[in-house]
């Protein structure tokens, strides 16, 4: 055990820069020399291009993958620009352009629910600066002071004279002006475009088949590749016999890809995949060939009580002393499995490599990471590489990785001049995920004689994501992300005050590669803590809501969302006959979230979810309609994980290869989600991920209320618990 994927130096450099200096890039909001957009229109600044026909093109660096970021960021720019929303369209700058312009668009990385919350400041300033330049251009034309000009919906008015001119008429002149040194942003309470429930900008093409995803790319002369990587992580490709398939229809070439994979290149993907299936391949499974879910589970279990090493994530008082003096202690052990992102569109990338250039077309959550991967895998200098971001069929964290891009470049390098589209089969996608990390947790709570919780020790044993994916983010050997939702303060803070508290991590990294899986570590941390809080409450005969409230007096924002769901579900009134309730709260990605459910259980194992109430306080809400959709969707993701989600390991490889053994919820299982959006202002929280983590504990706590049975491991199918 202990195998970790190789660190890529270039993505390390870019990644670190992106994290460390996103807002300190000295992003210029325009320039005295006009820069021209692809269609010949001069850009007002990097964020805004206004065409003579009044179309407003907003450049978006972050990736849209369904979460609505594209629309939300465009709203923020348009708000400050005071343009006509109906004329707004968007485009992606390429990573190559960004690098060539000193990263003028900032960070491309789209994960951690950061799309809006970490770029709202500079994109709004981009819009505000463009507006000032447009006004200046109009004022110059009128020889009038700027202070006499006003803007609304893309029209500049000289107030004293009533003269008007549109943005499109002065955009070219504005592009030549010096950008303003400083711009003032609107108070969100004055927003008229941002903060409003507007429709997405990219819907129509998703309803008529016209939206092009990475899998749909067609280039002249393009060939298709199917690939098999050694199913055992860390294993290698020993040999393959291509004589069996080279005569098959459409097959052009069989190529080795790195140390561990082989690809068939053919005229169509179906031919490539069929030939690959027919080709004898011999693997060297390597040292991980005997690893199983059982062996991993046993190793993690040992970490629950291991004295050292244990990294401390949150500490208060003296837990040992509290336990020694306790009137009563309660203990429980929980577990969370590996899970695959299972994006609907399997991983793919299209690459055209020549000795002079390497171009990549792919759906990605991080255009710059793909760019760095292309530079490294092609061996070409960065000014000879370019990446074109294509709509991804789901991301959920998986498309922040670049493994599939490296493979595609490696294949294309062996066929210079021929565009190669590499697409993974669903089976390849399931076998080569970057899985939700596996962990277990032992929790011990201590009460005094008056049933006050005086001590809590939460030991997490298991896998670190950063150790594998982003080792530069480790702090003295500790993975701080492990403690997401459990920290003393910050964007993922615990919502309880326990006088004697210890939350620590015994890190154990199996060879199965982990990744950021939508919701990341709050998913299991919320199950562990919020189920255990319920256990503690019941152990002293207290109402789970009241028990929490007593511990939350110093956490008013956590408490506010909890109270909101309690009120909406009707916690203090009796539930309908045969219906039982569960409740929980947590924090992640800068947002406070809570959920309450009503379920009924038949035969002890068939769950029907009647109601889900979910509250979110994201600080500011840029598009309430899209946030509603993220919340509803996050319950589908979170409850699919709770009921079905598990990738098991046998012989060092993942056993589940398709949706028949890795199930996902369908319509009949999914109740309506009543979402409560309660932005309290003053901070910016994410909305794509946070509510996933409250889906499972709300149901698990309701299941206990209904049956008296506490379920402490995921998924429910392993307990023979199914949807009614």
């Amino acid at each position: 055990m202990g195998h970790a994927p190789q660190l890529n130096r270039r993505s390390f450099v870019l990644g670190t820069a992106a994290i460390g200096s996103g807002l300190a890039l000295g992003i210029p909001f325009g320039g005295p020399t006009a820069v021209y957009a692809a269609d010949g229109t001069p850009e007002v600044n990097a964020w805004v291009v206004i065409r003579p026909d009044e179309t407003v093109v907003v450049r978006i660096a972050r990736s849209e993958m369904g979460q609505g970021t594209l629309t939300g960021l465009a709203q923020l720019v348009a708000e400050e620009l005071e343009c006509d929303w109906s004329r707004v369209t968007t485009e992606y700058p390429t990573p190559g352009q960004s690098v060539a312009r000193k990263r003028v668009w900032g960070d491309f990385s789209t994960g951690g629910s950061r799309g809006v919350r970490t770029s709202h400041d500079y994109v709004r300033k981009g819009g505000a600066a463009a507006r000032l330049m447009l006004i200046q251009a109009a004022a110059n034309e009128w020889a009038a002071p700027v202070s006499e000009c006003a803007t609304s919906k893309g029209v500049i008015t000289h107030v004293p004279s009533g003269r008007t001119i549109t943005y499109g008429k002065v955009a070219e002149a504005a592009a030549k002006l010096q950008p303003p040194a400083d711009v003032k942003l609107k108070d969100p309470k004055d927003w008229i475009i941002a903060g409003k429930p507007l429709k997405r900008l990219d819907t129509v093409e998703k309803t008529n088949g016209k939206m092009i995803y990475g899998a749909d790319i067609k280039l002249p002369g393009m060939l298709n590749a199917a690939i098999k990587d050694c199913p055992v992580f860390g294993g290698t490709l020993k040999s393959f016999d291509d004589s069996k398939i080279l005569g098959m229809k459409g097959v052009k070439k069989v190529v080795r890809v790195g140390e561990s994979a082989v690809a068939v290149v053919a005229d169509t993907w179906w031919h490539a995949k069929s030939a690959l299936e027919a080709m004898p391949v011999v693997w060297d499974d390597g040292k991980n060939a005997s690893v199983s879910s059982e062996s991993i589970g046993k190793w993690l279990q040992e970490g629950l009580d291991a004295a050292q090493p244990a990294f401390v994530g949150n500490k208060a008082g003296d837990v040992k002393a509290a336990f020694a003096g306790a009137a009563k202690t309660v203990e429980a052990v929980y577990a969370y499995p590996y899970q695959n992102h299972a994006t609907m569109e399997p991983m793919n990338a299209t690459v055209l490599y020549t000795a002079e250039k390497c171009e990549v077309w792919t759906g990605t959550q991080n255009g710059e990471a793909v760019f760095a991967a292309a530079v490294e895998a092609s061996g070409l200098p960065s000014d000879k590489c370019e990446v074109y971001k294509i709509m991804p069929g789901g991301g959920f964290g998986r498309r922040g990785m670049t493994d599939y891009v490296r493979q595609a470049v490696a294949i294309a390098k062996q066929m210079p001049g021929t565009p190669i589209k590499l697409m993974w089969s669903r089976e390849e996608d399931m076998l080569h995920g970057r899985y939700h990390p596996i962990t277990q947790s032992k929790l011990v709570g201590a009460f005094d004689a008056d049933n006050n919780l005086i001590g809590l020790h939460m030991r997490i044993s298991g896998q670190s994501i950063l150790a594998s994916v982003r080792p530069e983010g480790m702090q003295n050997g500790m993975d701080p992300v492990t403690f997401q939702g459990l920290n003393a303060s910050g964007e993922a803070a615990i919502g309880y005050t326990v006088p004697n508290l210890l939350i620590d991590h015994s890190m154990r990294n199996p060879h199965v590669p982990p990744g950021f899986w939508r919701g990341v570590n709050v998913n299991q941390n919320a199950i562990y803590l919020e189920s255990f809080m319920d256990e503690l409450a019941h152990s002293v005969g207290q109402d789970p809501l009241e028990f929490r409230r007593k511990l939350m007096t110093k956490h008013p924002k956590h408490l506010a969302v909890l109270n909101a769901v309690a009120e909406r579900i009707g916690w203090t009134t009796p539930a309908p006959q045969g219906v039982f309730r569960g409740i929980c709260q947590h924090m992640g990605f800068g947002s406070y979230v809570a959920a309450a459910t009503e379920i009924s259980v038949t035969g002890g194992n068939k769950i029907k979810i009647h109601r889900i109430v979910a509250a979110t306080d994201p600080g500011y809400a840029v598009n309430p309609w899209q946030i509603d959709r993220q919340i509803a969707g996050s319950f589908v993701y979170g409850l699919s994980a709770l009921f079905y989600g598990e990738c098991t390991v046998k012989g060092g490889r993942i056993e589940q290869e398709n949706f028949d053994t890795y199930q996902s919820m369908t319509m009949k299982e999914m109740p309506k989600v009543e979402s409560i959006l309660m932005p309290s202002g003053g901070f910016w929280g994410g909305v794509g991920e946070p509510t996933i983590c409250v889906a499972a504990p709300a149901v698990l706590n309701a299941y206990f209320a209904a049956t008296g049975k506490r379920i402490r491991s995921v998924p429910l199918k392993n307990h023979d618990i199914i949807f009614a």
Partner: protein
Amino acid sequence: MASLTINGRTYEIDAEPDTPLLWAIRENAGLTGTKYGCGVAQCGACTVHVDGQQVRSCSMALSEAIGKQITTIEGLASEGGVHKVQQAWIDHDVPQCGYCQSGMIMAVAALLETVPQPTDEDIDLAITNICRCGTFQQVREAIHAAASA
């Protein structure tokens, strides 16, 4: 060489008879609105209509589709128009990533042909497509809207 009738047009398809209809549509006819998700009829991203019935095209052989009327997402609406299901999808802002939505829309359009006013239970039974973004809430709203359009 096989002749397929897709969206009222004849395509000469140079593919083996056992090629899944999905890949004949995507790679031979070049209509990429129909998506590959699983290849084993689990997810429904590849749903098309064959003689008006919803079919998971990844699991039907090209040879079985010869002589039948195949409709894909590109041909769901009449020329230049918008099908009522598509309109409901636009009105209710249903898609997130959108990858599964072609199949979802085709499944719903087929349902409304046989059950013009489906109940929630009808929808639960008929629409079993997987959507990992989790658009089900909006899908249900949009189905009811399309049914009453």
